[in-house]
C-alpha cells in the first residue's frame, strides 16, 4: 500500500544516503544475528517469498485496482527480520526496473520493511491468544498504519508534501492503481472509474479514504491467505512464528 515510489533526484542526497545506511545495517544485523547455518536453510524460502512479492507487484494478480506488496505477510511467513531482508531484495530489483529510484532503495526498504517487522512481530505476539486469522488482520492493519504514518511523516518533513492538504500523497496512491492496471488491457476501465472517485473527494478526506480502503483490503487478503495456510499447511505458519529468526 504505502510505497513511496520516490523517483531519483527528489530526495536530498543526505536523506537517501542515511536511508541506505540504516537499511543495510538492519539487513546485515539480521543476517549476522542468527547463525549462518540457519539462515542458509531459509534462503530458498526467502527467495520464493521475494519472487512472490516481485510477481504480485509487477503483475496484475489482483483484478482489483490495488497494489498490494504483502510485506506484512512476508513478516508472518518467514519471520520479521528475514522479512525485512526480503523487502530489501525486492526493492532493489524493482529499482533496477525503474519502479522507485535506485538511490532511494534504502528509504523504500525502511518504510515497507517496517510492515514486515511490525506485522511479523505483532502476529507472533497475538496469535497465541487470539488465533491465527484475527491476529493476521490486526497485525497487518497495524503494520500498514505504521508504515503509512512513517511515509507521510517523512514526506512532509522533507517538504515534499503539505501535511495540511495532503497533496502529493493522494496522487501517490492513485498511481498505485496505474501500476497494476496500466499493464493489462481490459483493466483500464476500472482504473478510470476509480480515479474519478479519487478526484471527487479532496484533500485529507480522500487520502484517508483511499488509505483506509487499501489497508482493509490488504488486511483481509492477508488474513485469507493465512487462513488458507492454517487449513492446508499449518506447519508453515507455526514454524515461522514459533522459532526465533
Amino acid at each position, binding site marked *: 500500500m504505502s510505497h513511496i515510489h520516490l523517483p531519483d533526484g527528489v530526495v536530498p542526497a543526505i536523506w537517501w544516503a542515511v536511508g541506505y545506511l540504516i537499511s543495510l545495517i538492519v539487513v546485515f544485523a539480521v543476517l549476522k544475528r542468527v547463525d549462518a547455518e540457519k539462515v542458509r536453510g531459509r534462503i530458498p524460502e526467502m527467495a520464493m517469498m521475494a519472487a512472490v512479492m516481485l510477481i504480485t507487484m509487477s503483475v496484475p494478480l489482483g483484478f482489483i485496482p490495488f497494489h498490494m506488496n504483502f510485506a506484512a505477510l512476508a513478516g508472518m511467513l518467514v519471520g520479521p527480520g528475514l522479512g525485512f531482508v526480503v523487502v530489501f531484495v525486492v526493492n532493489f530489483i524493482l529499482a533496477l526496473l525503474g519502479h522507485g529510484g535506485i538511490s532511494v532503495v534504502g528509504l523504500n526498504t525502511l518504510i515497507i520493511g517496517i510492515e514486515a517487522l511490525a506485522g511479523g512481530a505483532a502476529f507472533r505476539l497475538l496469535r497465541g491468544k487470539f488465533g491465527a486469522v484475527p491476529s493476521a488482520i490486526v497485525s497487518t492493519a497495524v503494520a500498514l498504519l505504521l508504515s503509512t504514518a512513517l511515509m507521510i511523516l517523512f514526506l512532509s518533513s522533507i517538504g515534499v508534501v503539505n501535511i495540511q492538504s495532503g497533496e502529493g500523497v493522494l496522487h501517490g496512491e492513485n498511481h498505485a492503481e496505474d501500476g497494476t492496471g496500466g499493464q493489462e488491457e481490459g483493466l483500464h476501465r476500472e482504473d478510470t472509474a476509480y480515479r474519478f472517485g479519487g478526484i471527487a473527494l479532496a484533500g485529507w478526506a480522500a487520502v484517508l479514504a483511499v488509505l483506509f480502503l487499501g489497508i482493509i483490503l490488504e488486511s483481509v487478503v492477508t488474513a485469507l491467505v493465512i487462513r*488458507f495456510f492454517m*487449513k*492446508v*499447511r499449518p506447519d508453515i505458519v507455526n514454524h515461522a512464528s514459533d522459532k526465533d529468526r
Partner: protein
Amino acid sequence: MEALVEVRCIKHIYPDNTQVTLCGLDFVVHSGERVVILGPNGAGKTTLLSHILGLLAPVEGSVKVMGLQPHKHFRQVRRNIGMVFQNVDEQIIGPTVYDDIAFTPRNERLSREEVERRVMAVATRIGIQDILHKIPHYLSGGQKKKVALAGAIAMSPKLLILDEPFDGLAPASKREMMDLLNQLNRENGTTLIVTTHDVNLVPYIADTVYVLYDGKIVTKGSPYEVFIQRDVLEAAHLEPPILVDIFTHLKEKGYNITVPTTPEQAKEQLDTLLKSVR
C-alpha cells in the same frame, strides 16, 4: 458431421520472438471425434491448444471454434470447452475438492442447488464422490488428475481438451483415465482433443491422429493409417506403437493379419495365424 474446430496454417510469435508455425495440413475436428496430437518436444502441441482455447491469437492463419474466432469471442467459446492442463496442480483452485469442481458453475452464477447437483453428478461419474471434502493438496497424482477432469467437465462442455493427461500416471490409472474419456465421448458425445507422448495408448483413444513436426502438420489419419507411415514417423522423431510395429512387419512378410489395438487382440491374431500356417 460439422467441423467443431478448424485451424489453418497459423503462425504464433511468443514475446521472446520464438516463432511457432503450424502449416501443412489443416487441423479439423468434427463433433464427437476423438483426436490425438503427436509430435516431439517443442513441436507446438501446447501452442496449438492455446490457440484453440483463445488464450493466444495467431499473427497469421485462422483459428475457428464453432465458427468463431476464440480469442475474439473468448467467453462464448470458453463456455463450450473444458480443459485439463498438463500440470494439474496449477489448475486446482478450490480449497476443497468440492469447491474446485464447483468453481465454474458458481462463477456462472448457477443456483446453489444446481451447483450441488452438477458437482455430485460429475463426482459420481468420475468416482471421486468419497473425497469431495478433502483438500486437493493431499491427494495422489492420479486423484488430482481426476479432480481436474471433474472441474473441466462440470459444465458439460462439448469439447474437452487434455494436454498430456497420462503424464506421471501409473498404468492402472492411465487405463482408468482412458476409460473415463472414452465413456464421456460415447455417452455424452464429448469431442476430445488429447496430446500425449505415449504412442502405445493412441489406438485406445484416437479416431484421428495428427502429427506435428518442424512447423508443419505432416500427416493425419486413423491411428493405423498414420502409424504405418514409417518414414514420416521417423522423420518426426516418433516411433510407432509396439503392436503396430510388429504386426505391420508380419503383414509386409505376406501373412494375412490385421493390425491389433490391444495386446488381447494381438494374442488372438497370433493364435489364429499360428494355427493357420501350421
